């Protein structure tokens, strides 16, 4: 214990020094999302600027603070001044910002989005008062974007591993009791009470037990787990130690998808640092608890996020799910009692064990305690990774945090390929496990995709079924064959070849697949279809009966036309058309040849945003085939 206390003291001193910086600090958001937006180039540019201007400054790469739509984010903290955050920095604007804020100690407030100080500063709002951040309760994500994920000392300084220290001072049963009292439910999607699974495992006799972290995160577009690991890997690792202690496991395994190389690198680094600090191995922090962590990379299969398929994959077998019973908590990896928890579930544990169950109960509501991270994407103005209390309504998330939509709201998809699309009537529903399930969807791992009138709901259902059909492991008939049939029907409908009895067939197939499938992939695969049928039936009927796609997305049902009265003949569209379908002499209204048009939208977009006329091209439903 003394060892860690000393280190914590040293770390806190280090952190204080950082906060009371004597030289400028430049923070650059360099997690995968930041990098995708161009952070690496900005990093290099910053280093060059500092050299050229003979300025010494500390450059810290931090993780993701949440508002992805503002990336790349560059924060500057001058001595004696609060940290100021600049959004959507480009190679052009970076030198201006650096010149002003670092060069002359004057924040460039025109381009600043917020600051991290206490009071108002230079007319710049507080970052946490921004409408996207204010309603959020950041518990799991508390360190993301603020600390350097490659510095264990930063984590220690912000009370990291205190949760573990508290846990080791209790009996494992008491730790389970705390988690019980806190009401923590599995954040991977099912929402099963975490303490229940742990209790079964704890009570199953066995010398060797395993704790597995499910970091496969297969839902397309989901990145909650990736962000957390890249920005704050120790939060996950501390959580694993707490869980391992509670269930009596001596070996932890992180099953992480190979498509997350930065996260994998950060984990390897963090594990090495833990070993140095005596936080892994034998007699951790001087207790009787010994634990080791290793990584196992996935190989590109969505089904390996299912717990029994995950176990098969770790065992070196083909990732196909097994029937239950026996449940993994009793007989899992190599036949030993095994607990599999999601990254976020584990990432929440340090906070619960550090601050207590009563503290955690302040958030959320009865039966749905605490907070949940969500990836809010789609047609909202402010997209990114958010964390809110369970029970927050969809309206609050979409409009208060997300800033609403530009066009009228149509639907929100929750839970990825296992979830469903909910219509406007559900906007005031609280986001909790039961409410979403009652509506026919699921909470899932936290994907929220907002859609407006430009989204074809049948196309969305088709997209998800295409995904689940390709990812089906092939073991059981209903999923392997049933999803293929559903996909074929949806493809016909989107091509304008739907039949009158297709909707009944979709329901029957959906029912069979839900009831008959072996694992969660199959059992939830029909959800996108079944919910869209329930709440957007008319759109299906329009496709089938009228051959019309009201969102003008399904290519076989739409055509592109020039409004002669508006067209000025500027030729902007002619230049971008890849097939030469749109033609016309200069200064005369143009024409679209439907036989050549591949409906790529280039002319539409160009006319809208760059041409003189602005709105001369429309996409309309095609003439109904007789």
């Amino acid at each position, binding site marked *: 214990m003394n060892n860690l206390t000393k280190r914590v003291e040293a770390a806190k001193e280090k952190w204080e020094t950082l906060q009371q910086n004597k030289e400028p600090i430049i923070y650059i958001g360099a997690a995968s999302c930041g990098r995708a937006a161009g952070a690496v180039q900005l990093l290099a540019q910053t280093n060059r600027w500092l050299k050229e201007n003979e300025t010494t400054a500390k450059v810290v790469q931090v993780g993701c603070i949440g508002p992805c739509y503002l990336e790349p984010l560059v924060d500057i903290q001058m001595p004696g001044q609060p940290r100021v955050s600049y959004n959507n920095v480009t190679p052009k604007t970076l030198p201006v910002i650096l010149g002003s804020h670092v060069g002359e100690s004057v924040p460039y407030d025109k381009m600043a989005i917020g600051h991290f100080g206490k009071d108002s500063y230079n007319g710049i709002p507080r970052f946490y008062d921004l409408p996207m951040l204010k309603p959020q309760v950041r518990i799991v994500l508390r360190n993301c974007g603020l600390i350097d994920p490659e510095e264990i000392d930063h984590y220690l300084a912000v009370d990291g591993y205190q949760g573990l220290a508290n846990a080791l001072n209790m009996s494992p049963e008491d730790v389970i009791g705390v988690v019980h009292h806190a009401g923590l439910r599995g954040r991977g999607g099912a929402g099963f009470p975490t303490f229940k699974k742990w209790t079964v495992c704890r009570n199953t006799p066995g010398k060797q037990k395993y704790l597995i972290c499910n970091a496969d995160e297969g839902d397309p577009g989901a990145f909650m787990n990736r962000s957390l690991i890249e920005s704050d890997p120790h939060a996950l690792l501390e959580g694993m130690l707490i869980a391992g202690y509670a269930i009596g496991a001596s070996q932890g395994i992180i099953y992480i998808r190979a498509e997350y190389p930065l996260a994998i690198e950060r984990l390897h680094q963090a594990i090495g640092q833990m070993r140095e600090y005596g936080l892994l191995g034998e007699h951790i922090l001087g207790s009787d608890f010994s634990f080791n962590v290793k990584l196992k990379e996935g190989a590109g299969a969505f*089904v390996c996020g299912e717990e029994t398929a995950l176990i098969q994959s770790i065992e070196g077998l083909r990732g196909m799910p097994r029937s239950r019973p026996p449940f993994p908590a009793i007989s899992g990896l190599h036949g030993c009692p095994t607990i599999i928890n999601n990254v976020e579930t584990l990432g929440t544990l340090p906070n619960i064990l550090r601050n207590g169950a009563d503290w955690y109960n302040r958030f959320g509501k009865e039966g749905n305690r605490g907070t949940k991270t969500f990836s809010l994407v789609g047609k909202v103005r402010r997209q990114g990774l958010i964390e809110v209390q369970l029970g927050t309504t969809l309206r609050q998330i979409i409009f208060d945090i997300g800033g609403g939509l530009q066009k009228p709201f149509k639907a929100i998809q929750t839970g990825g390929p296992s979830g469903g699309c909910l219509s406007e009537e559900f906007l005031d529903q609280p986001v909790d496990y039961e409410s979403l399930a009652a509506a026919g969807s699921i909470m899932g791992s936290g994907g929220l995709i907002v859609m407006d009138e430009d989204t074809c709901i049948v196309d969305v259902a088709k997209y998800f079924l295409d995904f689940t059909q390709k990812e089906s492991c092939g073991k059981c008939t209903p999923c392997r064959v*049933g*999803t*293929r049939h559903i996909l*074929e029907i949806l493809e016909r409908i989107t091509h304008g070849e739907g039949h009158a009895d297709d909707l009944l067939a979709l329901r029957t197939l959906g029912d069979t697949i839900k009831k008959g499938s072996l694992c969660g992939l199959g059992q939830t695969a029909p959800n996108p279809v079944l919910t869209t049928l329930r709440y957007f039936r008319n759109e299906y009927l329009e496709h089938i009966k009228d051959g019309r796609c009201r969102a003008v997305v399904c290519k076989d049902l739409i055509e592109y036309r020039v409004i002669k009265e508006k067209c000025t003949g500027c030729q902007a569209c002619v230049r971008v058309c890849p097939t030469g379908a749109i033609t016309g002499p200069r200064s005369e209204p143009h024409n679209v040849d439907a036989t050549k048009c591949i409906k790529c939208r280039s002319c539409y977009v160009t006319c809208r945003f760059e041409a003189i006329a602005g709105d001369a091209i429309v996409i309309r439903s095609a003439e109904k085939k007789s």
Partner: protein
Amino acid sequence: MTKEKMLSITIDNKKVSVRPNQTVLEAARDNAIDIPSLCALPHLRAYGACRLCVVEVDGLRGFPTSCTTPVEDGMVIRTDTAEIKILRQEVLKLVLSEHPGSCLFCDQAAECKKYMGTIRKVGVTTGCRYCPNDLHCELQDVVEKVGLAESSYPVLYHNFPVEKYDPFYDRDYNLCVLCGRCVRVCSEVRLNSTLSFKQRGRLTTIGPAFDRSHLDAGCEFCGACVQVCPTGALASKVSKWTGKPDAETSTTCVYCPVGCTIRLQVKNDQVVDALPDYSSEVDGGLICVKGRFAVPEYVNHFDRLAKPQEMTSMGYNDVSWDDAAAKAAEKLKGLGPDDCLFVLSPQLSNEDLFAAQEFARQTVGSEAIAPSPMFELGDDLLPFIDLVLRSEPYALIDQAQAIVSVGFDSRFGYTPIGIATKKAARKGVFLASLSFPESNLDMLAEVSMREEPGRWAELLKSLIDCVSGSGGAIDGDVGRIADATRGASPVLLIVGPQILSAPGRADILKALLEIREKLSWKVIVAHPYTNLLGMLTLGAFPGLKPGDIVRNGPSAGAVSLRFDPVDLNKPRKVVYLIGEVLPASLPP
């Protein structure tokens, strides 16, 4: 012996008493409730893939599969509600939507079956040749059981090419319903793992991984997969189109001394197939390619003589049995004992062997009986027989603490021994293999030595020295074997047929005997002379009378065996081949 406590369950409103440690499916079938299933099999682990055996169980969510649910006391089960019936039919419709079901849907099915045979000069059969399993197909049975009458789902034909360029069995994966039985039997029962699921989603299919050929992937052509396939996807070439057998006879295979039980499938008095018997105490159903596929192919081969023939100046002439006997008797009349040589085959039955030596000794008065091993082994015959006489039953492999195999490969023979060895190695028992060029045990062997047979005697000698501590190499493979076997008991030495054709055979046999005597290892000999023990017992050796070996006691071994010398090179008036071919070493 404590009697198992029976459990009480309610199934379809009937209260019954069932044994513990079984699945709901098994318990139901024991009580005349036949829940349909395609992927469950008694000797395979519970799998739950086809989803046809779904039931409702109070207290369990949804529709659990009865093949994976163990019975518990007080369970309430419903197997036949309206919802379950519909679910089963829907699942079956999905199965059939990937399986060309002409046998079910063809309008001409009834008419077609009337015209199966045809009178023509050429032996041609008409009738549907779409699928070899018609009329004896498990999928057809399930369709009937589930009561499916129609399906409107469009059928997907995968258009896989039929794989028929390997011997013994064909594979048409267009008929495959992905029940997984073949993959499981290959992996769990045969411990071979040649087959695996490939790809996923709509592209899922079955075959050796990485698109290797079956031979390259280690397939032993044992046919276990063919037997468990519920559709016509896997079909034995020889029995493919013969239809449902009308009789079955159990018999013993004659290809090697293991003597596995094979169940001959008979149709119209012809042997059409040979199947394993999983309840056999001799082999547990683990027969090899020879018993499984060679038997029906050879039995019906057109080259096989079925009538007596006499060679004349114009070639071979068919004669009647009576004529043949008379002509042979003429040739043998009045011969002296030295004028004949009787060459016997080790594949003869005990009765045939007794009759043969009786004829030689009593009728002709000759002791010139030469079993073919005599020709092949020469001076090594006695040491070899010594090894064989003290060969242990292979059940001992289960208790071995270490196993060393010399010249043994169980791919195409002696498979019960090979599989028992693999099982032991998987459990962690030390296994070493010495063979050339390779053995199928190499993959599981901790030490696998691929050495030229010429070196084996010297390697064995150095092993003996090493284990008994009297010098010898301590590094290398031999050292590792010595370390693992020193102090272990029992250590099993499996001797395979490769030693019989090895150069330096005499020295190898000497070393093996020394291992048995000096190191007290238990020996199991796998050799090709099927009824060698029968020959020894029934006196089919020169100078050995019937029963001698039994009279002298089992511990006598080869030490007291003494055969009369027979001059194999002396020209004779008559060479009587009984079950054998002319040994190459005989003078013309």
